[in-house]
């Protein structure tokens, strides 16, 4: 085989041959490095900004497992995100548990919600699935608005614990470290799915292109879709779980806000949906941009940026930033 027939590889942080264990290790090392750097900076704003960006890394990576790998567009990312946030509120209030067990519960709730969504919408394709997820979001918001235990439409205050776990100096720093770990884990999970030898990523890619042909090739499309909705749902809820502690306050309108749904879609599409690196790049770029715009211009303007960048990218660069690199290499 000549060199010319080799695929043009995008410039990825990790070479393709890297094994799963090595990649997980690399993610862990990267997470530790990020935590160390942030601890070095030590400013509350740096913690907050990093947490903001990284919760989007988790959300976008999670969305991409269903949306990018399997081609099922979920407009209801905000519902899963909010489900995670409200799990923290409800479990924290009912059992008095701290953040980490709340995150575990959020994963369970989000996974169950994802599985339920999958079961209910199994036969739906394309736009119908997207609309169904949007409806799910409204139904869930209505339930939360009417659930007075978590504050109903007024929202709920969540008080940060007074004692901060060792070795962190502030709760903001601890929260940020938790989200760093979550982001690293999300990326490792996404990459494992994508390149799994069992073929999960391959099967999802096949059903994304043509479900009937995938079935004919022996791919159990139904089961794969359910696995993808469950994992994606669990991870999106995990992304939302730290939210109440980040702002000390949640209310349905913002937790279910369109901003999360749009970002969850825009970030993978801007980065590139084909690989785990796409949502990561998209989330870091877009969330940093928004964070910068919030500080320098206004919070409404930062959302406008997301919309405009999304529309420009889907029109001009349908394969995202990664796609641009791929083309450049060829």
């Amino acid at each position: 085989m000549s060199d010319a027939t080799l695929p043009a590889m995008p410039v990825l942080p990790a070479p393709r041959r890297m094994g799963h264990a090595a990649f997980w290790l690399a993610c862990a090392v990267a997470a530790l490095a990020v935590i160390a750097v942030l601890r070095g900076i030590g400013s509350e704003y740096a913690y907050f900004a990093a947490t903001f960006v990284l919760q989007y890394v988790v959300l976008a990576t999670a969305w991409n497992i269903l949306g990018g790998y399997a081609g099922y567009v979920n407009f209801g990312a905000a519902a899963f995100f909010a489900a995670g946030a409200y799990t923290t509120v409800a479990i924290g209030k009912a059992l008095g548990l701290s953040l980490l067990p709340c995150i575990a519960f959020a994963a369970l709730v989000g996974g169950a919600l994802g599985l339920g969504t999958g079961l209910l919408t199994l036969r739906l394709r394309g736009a119908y699935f997207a609309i169904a997820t949007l409806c799910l979001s409204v139904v869930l918001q209505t339930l939360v608005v009417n659930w007075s235990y978590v504050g109903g439409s007024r929202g709920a205050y969540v008080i940060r614990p007074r004692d901060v776990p060792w070795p962190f100096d502030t709760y903001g720093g601890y929260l940020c470290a938790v989200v760093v770990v979550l982001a690293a884990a999300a990326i490792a999970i996404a990459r494992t799915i994508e390149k799994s030898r069992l073929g999960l990523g391959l099967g999802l890619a096949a059903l994304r292109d043509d479900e009937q042909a995938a079935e004919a090739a022996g791919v159990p499309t139904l089961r794969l879709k359910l696995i993808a909705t469950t994992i994606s749902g669990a991870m999106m809820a995990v992304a939302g779980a730290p939210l109440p502690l980040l702002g000390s306050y949640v209310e349905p309108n913002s937790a279910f806000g369109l901003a999360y749904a749009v970002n969850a879609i825009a970030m993978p599409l801007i980065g590139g949906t084909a690989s785990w690196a796409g949502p990561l790049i998209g989330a870091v770029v877009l969330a940093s941009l928004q964070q910068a715009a919030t500080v320098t211009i206004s919070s409404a303007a930062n959302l406008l940026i997301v919309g405009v960048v999304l529309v420009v990218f889907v029109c001009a660069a349908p394969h995202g930033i990664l796609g641009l690199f791929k083309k450049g290499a060829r």
Partner: protein
Amino acid sequence: MDPDLALLLNGIVSGLLLGGLYAAAAAGLSVSFGMLDVVNIAHPAFMVLGAMLVALLWGATGIDPLVLSVLLTPAFWALGAAIYVAYHHFFERRGDEAIQGLAFFFGVMFIIEIGLVLAIGPEQHFADASYANVTWRLGEIDLPLRMLVPALVALLAIGGLALFLRRTFTGRAIAAVAQDREALRLLAIDPVRIKRLAFGISIAMAALAGGALVVVQPVEASSGHIFIGRVFAVVIMGGLSSLWGCVLAALAFGVVENVTASFYGPSWSPAVAFGALLLVLAVRPQGFFGRAA
């Protein structure tokens, strides 16, 4: 009369009037989503854009809001046609509608909404028609003109659209796009041109619906959200490309929602309606009166 019965009757009647508004909101989508297969998730945002412009123009001129919305339709038609040209160029032609096309309209919806917030602020805007505070009474039943007039205007517009689709050559070509693109080619009709025209019409209908909306209730930039699920629900339940199916579904939807609101409180009504849609999607994705997808 038994108070519960009166409550129920009033709930049904005002539900029918509300359904008229939903029909107006959904009719345009029935053209774009039902007939052209363009999943315009931003349709309610266009409606809100129309409503806001009507409110601003009303504030400046004092002309009746519904008249203003009719005056807006040519501009909205042009906007729709332009958006379709872009949509066709970037997505349909490349075969990328599935994910990128959906995301495109999601982005458009978001841009309209945030653009409105930036341009005229997040607060509610309203336009008072001269008849807004008049209520006709038929025994125990209230007929507020604030609801009745927009509903009637909406139904009139839908009737006109239905006539256009059935009676004119162009109209029949639009209806044919939904069923058989090849037949169009045989008739030497350019489907892209027809779809551009039809998408313009669907956005023009959104302007009319916006006029109706702002008569019924004050409007804010995010008012479109609660309509997204409803209009898609109505169009899908109505069988996608059938305008009358759409009107029937809209009326039914309005009644169910309103009766729920009168008996269990307004905060529950969205859940009922959307729950119904989720069920419809799960049981019969092609709608009840629909063509096979």
